[in-house]
């Protein structure tokens, strides 16, 4: 059952090959047997899920379907608030936080009939590229348990990669969907900023954060995005525009599409095994009629420096609400207000989060604002402009998702900057707000390799189609660990 895609499961449920109860039971058993090794889930909502599955089967029997995802199991990254279900954001600060409200994404997927099996592990407050920053312990890569699954949506990526669940939600601030998708051999889409509502998604860096689907195939991502996307009156930055049908456009030919290859993405920093895999993928796409041209994204090398100012600055402000007063961790016996704040936050936040809050606070403080924050916002303009110019002549931009395959646990924890450089290919799309997808395109040292495609604003439908056409002629996405 767990080798099926979401789309295949949907057909099987329709034709009565198995029930939602059987399907959910199967996955929950897989979670129970394998989560100890992977640590992909921080909460398993078995009872609610099985009850929902029973209801879904009853409704199906009476011909009454909730929506396109009726009775299909999914997982939510633990950054999405779930009414009545603990939402930790990977932090001790929210270890016991049970929100009395749902994120819009959670509401929408529930309304479409999806069943949540649990909440997936993540780097604390989505800050990290290896999932080693979770208060609930590191997540393991299903392809090699000594390696990281990537981050920050590492729990979601490991869960889908190990087929503990067929699909998950994720969030991507600097690559947090695409990079773990690449490391775990799955497909992950970061939509255009504003395409998916951020309401109820715990904020890390508000101008960069975007929720998106993580699944086995591009088709499954399209199924999920169809339900997740859309304007939300509760999110001022969500876009009021008609949403496309991401599934119906999947059959289109990609003959003649123009794909740009930025020379900056294929330089010395790229692992040769990844470069080789990409060359093979490019050849496959050429066979499908894609035309490749070299392009120049001149300011790409400044995206990591700019990102590691903008994101910490926003996070330093976004995380000020965690003060031990209204919810979340509160230190014992505070001697005064300042002590309450300082100890609650020192105890509640992990080291990486604290480091970023400090950097961000510094970058916004009097005397440094212009040199750091404002400068980074200007660099952001330049990076965005590079993309706009490129999209005047190409439909998509192709490159690696990561500079190397999944690295070993502990390998990069010593030096934050080395860890940050892992996001070099994913960050530019966040700074510009563009959609990007990571698609499995090969193996290196027995580990999955991801290819990244970046599209123009709101071009998710075509982006998913290119990935889908590629997956129709390749099988990297179907490969399973061990």
């Amino acid at each position, binding site marked *: 059952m767990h080798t099926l895609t979401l789309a295949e499961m949907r057909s099987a449920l329709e034709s009565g090959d198995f029930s939602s109860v059987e399907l959910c039971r199967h996955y929950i058993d897989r979670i129970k047997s394998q989560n100890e090794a992977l640590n992909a889930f921080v909460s398993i909502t078995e009872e609610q899920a099985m009850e929902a599955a029973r209801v879904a089967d009853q409704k199906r029997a009476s011909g009454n379907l909730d929506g396109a995802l009726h009775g299909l199991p999914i997982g939510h990254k633990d950054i999405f608030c779930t009414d009545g279900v603990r939402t930790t954001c990977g932090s001790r600060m929210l270890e016991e936080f049970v929100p009395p409200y749902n994120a819009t994404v959670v509401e929408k997927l529930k309304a479409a009939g999806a069943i949540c099996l649990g909440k997936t592990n993540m780097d604390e407050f989505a800050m990290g590229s290896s999932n080693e920053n979770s208060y609930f312990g590191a997540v393991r890569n299903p392809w090699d348990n000594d390696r990281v699954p990537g981050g920050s949506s590492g729990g979601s990526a490991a869960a889908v990669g190990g087929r503990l669940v067929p699909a998950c939600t994720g969030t991507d601030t600097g690559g947090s969907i695409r990079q773990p998708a690449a490391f775990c051999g799955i497909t992950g889409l970061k939509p255009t900023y504003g395409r998916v509502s951020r309401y109820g998604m715990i904020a890390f860096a508000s101008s960069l954060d975007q929720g998106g689907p993580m699944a086995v195939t591009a088709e499954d991502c399209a199924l999920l995005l169809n339900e997740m996307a859309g304007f939300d009156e509760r999110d001022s930055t969500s876009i009021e525009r008609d949403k496309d049908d991401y599934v119906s456009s999947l059959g289109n030919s990609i003959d003649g599409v123009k794909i740009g290859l930025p020379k900056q993405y294929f330089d010395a920093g790229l692992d040769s095994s990844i470069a080789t895999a990409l060359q093979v993928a490019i050849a496959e796409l050429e066979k499908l009629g894609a035309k490749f041209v070299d392009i120049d994204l001149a300011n790409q090398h400044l995206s990591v420096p700019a990102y590691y100012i903008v994101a910490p600055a926003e996070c330093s402000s976004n995380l000020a609400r965690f003060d031990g007063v209204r919810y979340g961790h509160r230190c014992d016996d505070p001697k005064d207000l300042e002590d309450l704040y*300082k100890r609650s936050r020192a105890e509640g936040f992990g080291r990486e989060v604290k*480091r970023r809050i400090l950097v961000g606070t510094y970058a916004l403080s009097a005397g440094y604002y212009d040199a750091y924050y404002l400068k980074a916002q200007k660099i952001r303009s330049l990076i965005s402009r590079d993309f706009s110019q490129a999209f005047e002549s190409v439909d998509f931009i192709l490159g690696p998702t990561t500079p190397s395959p999944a690295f070993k646990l502990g390998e990069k924890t010593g030096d934050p900057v080395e860890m*940050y450089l892992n996001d070099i290919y994913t960050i530019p799309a966040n700074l510009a707000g563009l959609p990007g997808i990571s698609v499995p395109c090969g193996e290196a040292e027995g580990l999955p390799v991801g290819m990244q495609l970046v599209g123009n604003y709101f071009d998710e439908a075509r982006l998913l189609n290119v990935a889908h056409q590629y997956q129709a002629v390749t099988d990297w996405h179907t490969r399973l660990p061990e």
Partner: protein
Amino acid sequence: MADDAESVVGNEVVEQVAHLARIQIDSDSVSNYASEMSGVLELAAQMDQVDTSLVEPMAHPVRAVQRLREDVVTETDRREAFQDIAPSVENGYYLVPPVIE
């Protein structure tokens, strides 16, 4: 790298910033934070390679304007649900250590 980096941010800066951010930092980890922060700020200094004096800052990827909400009250009282998850409440108030004004 760490040794050079310490010149960017010293211990006293870490302490000031930690106070602004209301985070307690143990005295024995201050210098660690100083060198890590310095590393990040050195990375950020690469931005100085480009002259941006004529570039407009980009605060947001969305090139739209703020949507306005109608002035209607639709929220109901959910105090009980919100205060169920609060660390300390009494008579409907959130409690904090005494604040003297």
